[in-house]
């Protein structure tokens, strides 16, 4: 059969690389084919999610930042200073986390979706016009965020003025100083040329951009045992590929950015500088629990248990 798979990015970006790996595996190991629909062709992130829920699409990618309105608990992946920074811990976490394979699997299933994988797209960096080293430096700075209440809360706690803005206006708004900053993973800052309209790119280590890969539940359950295995293996092969692909991706993007704009300044906040941001993150955690209640608490507990085992492995 011809399976339709919509993603939130272009084919040469991380989600596109994952989807292409998945497609190649499926097509090499079965008579099925996969049609990938890149960003924008079938609507915004919310639209393709609904289409996957209805089974018009067989597969879909959505980063939890957009899933908040449907599954509020998914915003746990937006919380600052929760996910680890070390590559081995990150990789171990995404391969083995029970919070993904058990807790979230159930939450997504309630939405008619079979959660296949979650994968990282790299650490989130903040682009600004002036460097910052403390929440006080961010005072009055307008930072563009997605319209997730948790992200708004995060940047408020960080001392900035969170400004929700549609993606299409971000580039222009940075140029005209309507906003002074925005956050995105490194590869996206590079491919979206956001460095052209920013002076400083800061790694505060506060988050890793995460994406969920899902199949329509009815479609998945209607597959033969062999095909289900095929899909599982395909999604795992692609995950392994993307974890490898991740290593050095940020460095590669940084090098490309530096080559394109030598005047750009990279800042990595020191552990001491991060302390007040970590402290501010506590408020965000309280907000998360307030928004998601008991279920959110369970998710958070399991996530932390998973992170603990990632640390010790």
């Amino acid at each position, binding site marked *: 059969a011809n399976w339709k798979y919509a993603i939130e990015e272009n084919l040469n970006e991380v989600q596109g690389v994952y989807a292409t790996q998945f497609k190649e595996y499926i097509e090499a190991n079965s008579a099925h084919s996969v*049609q990938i629909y890149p960003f924008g062709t079938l609507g915004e992130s919310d639209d393709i999610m609904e289409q996957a829920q209805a089974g*018009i699409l067989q597969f879909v990618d959505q980063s939890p930042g957009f899933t908040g309105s449907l599954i509020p608990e998914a915003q746990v992946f937006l919380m600052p200073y929760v996910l680890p920074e070390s590559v081995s811990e990150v990789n171990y976490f995404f391969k083995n986390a029970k919070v993904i394979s058990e807790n979230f699997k159930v939450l997504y299933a309630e939405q008619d979706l079979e959660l296949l994988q979650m994968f990282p797209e790299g650490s989130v960096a903040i682009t600004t016009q002036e460097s910052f080293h403390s929440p006080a430096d961010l005072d009055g700075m307008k930072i563009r965020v997605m319209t997730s209440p948790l992200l708004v809360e995060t940047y408020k706690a960080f001392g900035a003025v969170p400004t929700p803005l549609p993606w299409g206006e971000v580039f222009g708004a940075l140029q005209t100083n309507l906003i002074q900053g925005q956050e995105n993973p490194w590869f996206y800052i590079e491919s979206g040329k956001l460095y052209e309209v920013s002076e400083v790119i800061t790694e505060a280590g506060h988050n890793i951009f995460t994406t969920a890969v899902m199949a329509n539940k009815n479609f998945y359950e209607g597959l033969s045992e062999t095909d289900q295995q095929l899909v599982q293996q395909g999604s795992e092969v692609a995950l392994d590929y993307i974890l490898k692909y991740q290593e050095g991706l940020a460095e590669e993007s940084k090098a490309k950015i530096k080559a394109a704009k030598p005047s750009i300044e990279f800042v990595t906040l020191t552990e001491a500088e991060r302390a007040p941001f970590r402290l501010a993150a506590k408020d965000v955690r309280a907000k998360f629990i307030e928004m998601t209640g008991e279920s959110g608490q369970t998710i958070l507990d399991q996530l932390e248990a998973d992170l603990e085992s990632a640390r010790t492995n």
Partner: protein
Amino acid sequence: MDMTSIMMTTMIALLLLGFPMMIPLLAATLIGFYYQFMGFDNSQFMIQQMLAGITPASLIAIPMFILAADIMTKGRSANKLIDMVMVYIGHYKGGLAVSTATACALFGAVSGSTQATVVAVGSTLRPKLLENGYNDSFNLSLIISSSGIALLIPPSIGMIIYGGISQTSISELFIAGIGPGILMLILFSLYSVFFAIKNEVPTLKKAPFRERFDVTKEALWPLGFPCIIVFGIYGGIFSPTEAASTCVLYALILEIIVFKSLDMKAVIGIAKSTGLITAIVFILVAAGAAFSWVISFAMIPQAIMENFGLNEANELQLLIAISIAFFVGCMFVDSIVVILILVPIFMPEIDRLGLDKVLVGVIITLQVAVGAVTPPFGCNIFTAVAIFKRPYIEVVRGLLPFVLMLALVAVLLIQFPQIALFLRDLAFAK
């Protein structure tokens, strides 16, 4: 017949028969859904896309600009601008005609639509042009062609819609439209002078200094609109939607407090007509979004590009193909509908070649302006027929020189993209 041919044939047939324009789009979309899903089972997603099509935040600039222009037109601002243009250039050879073109450009700096400009400027200045001996064919041609300038001078509804579906910065599009807009104004003005000399149209009396002073003073207030838009966006104070909202606030302050020309009852009437005009535009945007979803889902754009060999086109070839497609499209259909149908079809190729989407947007907007005034069909022509109640033949008789000038601008723009990009690069320091 395959799905693509049936969709396209149905759409064109219904358009030509005179169906309300949402219907050809919706009917073609329904056919597309039927073919894709072998029945109407998933057709509810057509509604998802209709709703998704009208809810992007950037599109809110459209009702706000319509509201601001509506307040201006129903109040005194629009006429004060026209008066000012008149006292300065009215008395030169062809001055009244040049004033008309300039007033269109100036009013276009507040209004985003051609039709509103035709109504606002045309209904005030056409009687004066007639009175002063310009023949009506020239007047009508001048008015509908000059109204196209409003499409290029920011704000522009066409650009807002293009920016929304192509993910292009609307601020950049706005700034880039100014150059070609002014070029159009210059060409039209030169022709107007030439026409006046050739036809020995009498000139107006020069306005006395006192009158000039008074009229200018009066027009200072409404001149704030273009400043809000250009410097607001250029200076990084406003996004396009915010600039539009500021224009609304400013227009209300002017008309209610300064000029005392509108009362609450008038404001309510304006709100209603703004709502109606917005709905007429947005139902098309909604239908267009559903249409473009179903053709994307069926991979029709790629198939069409391949059919015409455009999947291997170079930049120039693609730009020419885009120009022709939009030109022809706008002969028959409202510009918004054309943008909604054609942009998604060309987008994969525009992306493949990495074309500057701002330049593409300006070229498209210009073609829209050209197509809309080119006989035999042309949306502005029909608007003029309806509004001024003149026979079709009289409206189109004088159009040829204007169409030629517009075609010249189009060719120049493809040859020298800097006409559009110069200001953009300056404003955004590229």
